[in-house]
């Protein structure tokens, strides 16, 4: 059990390293960013932030507040098509490097 966990962690670390090394991670991030701006996700979150900020007052807003507000909402608001496209790209990457 412990060995399999260890092996799992090793594998994840190797995959993440590979993602970063090849630059695939940056590419995916840029793609996701563009897609999210395109579909209005960013504007929706900004509008939501505006409400939060107005509520709390401009001076008292912290990054933690914003992260706490944005992350769950952001996850939920990602359109299915974007999610599918991104997952497909990740799978393709994993398949290419499955020999690891």
């Amino acid at each position, binding site marked *: 059990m412990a060995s399999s966990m260890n092996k799992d962690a090793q594998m994840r670390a190797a995959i993440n390293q590979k993602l970063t090394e090849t630059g695939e991670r940056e590419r995916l991030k840029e793609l996701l960013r563009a897609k999210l701006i395109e579909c209005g996700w960013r504007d929706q979150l900004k509008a939501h932030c505006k409400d939060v900020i107005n509520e709390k007052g401009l001076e008292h*807003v912290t990054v933690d507040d914003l992260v706490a507000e944005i*992350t769950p909402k952001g996850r939920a608001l990602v359109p299915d098509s974007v999610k599918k496209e991104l*997952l497909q790209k990740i799978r393709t990457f*994993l398949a290419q490097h499955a020999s690891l």
Partner: protein
Amino acid sequence: MKMEDMSLSGLDNSKLEAIAHEIYSDLIEDTCLGLSFEIHRSVKCGYFMLDETDSESMKDFEIVDQPGVDIFGQVYNQWKSKECVCPNCNRSIAASRFAPHLEKCLGMGRNSSRIANRRIASSNNMNKSESDQEDNDDVNDNDWSYGSEKKGSFKPAGAKKRKSEKNPNSPRRSKSLKHKNGDVSTNSDPFKYNSSSGISYENLGPEELHTLLTTQCGVISEHTKKMCTRSLRCPQHTDDQRRSVRIYLLGSSASLPEADGSTDNDSFDVVEGQTLMSRLQWDGSSDISPSDSASSKASTNNSDTRKPKKKKPSLLAVASSGGSNKKKKPKPPAPLTPGMYSELN
């Protein structure tokens, strides 16, 4: 999804799927975090709310789309109907035409001195019949039917009537200067005219013609086709013009009458510079020498363009040679149709 994964790798397909989702949520969180930082920064720097305006103030800048008003909701300004009254001649002139009118009316610009001279002459001149003599040109001139046609109130019954009704200061009147070369110089002494200026030579018998030509200038105007009735020494026309008219009307044996021969050279010195200038301006279109009329026989248009070049050297010679008979040559010439003299040679 599962099918694809199984085909990709048999053992770890569920694990790979989990890893893929993990990477995906990592990316989403990264993006969310990035957005959070960005918004936080813009809030703290104060530009987060910049693109915000409340709807009430937006209404002030709404584009108005209604008939009769422009996009700012202002009433359409009909400047077209505005008219200005000229302080000089008291006419009302459309605003868009006011500046050019004023320039002419006040006598600025290129023709200022001529217009001014003319205006002084005509305003001093209370005898209307005299100014009518000047205007005989205008009445018969096809180029210049503007005044009588445009203004319905002015009855074109006779030149005198039209003349007396017209404001003497109007620039419209002075427009005829363009056609009447050199008449200006005589305006200072309008009484030189007699009432029968503009004799049409066709109607005269040979006797009358002869007596007329021995006592009067007789040069035929281009525009009115009438003869100058001033004295033989009238400064408006040159001796050459007088001579050629006599040749044309009386035959080649005719020559200039004695009066011309005794003309004093000094009397023309005053107008010498001015007339030289005017000759240059008018391209020497009158003052026809035999060689010119020969060349103009073929095509008058062509000779017109060539003449200035031809004339200029002789002009300089005239200017430099003093006291000779030639000196009288450059008089302000009344434009003569070149074709008129083409039969001479």
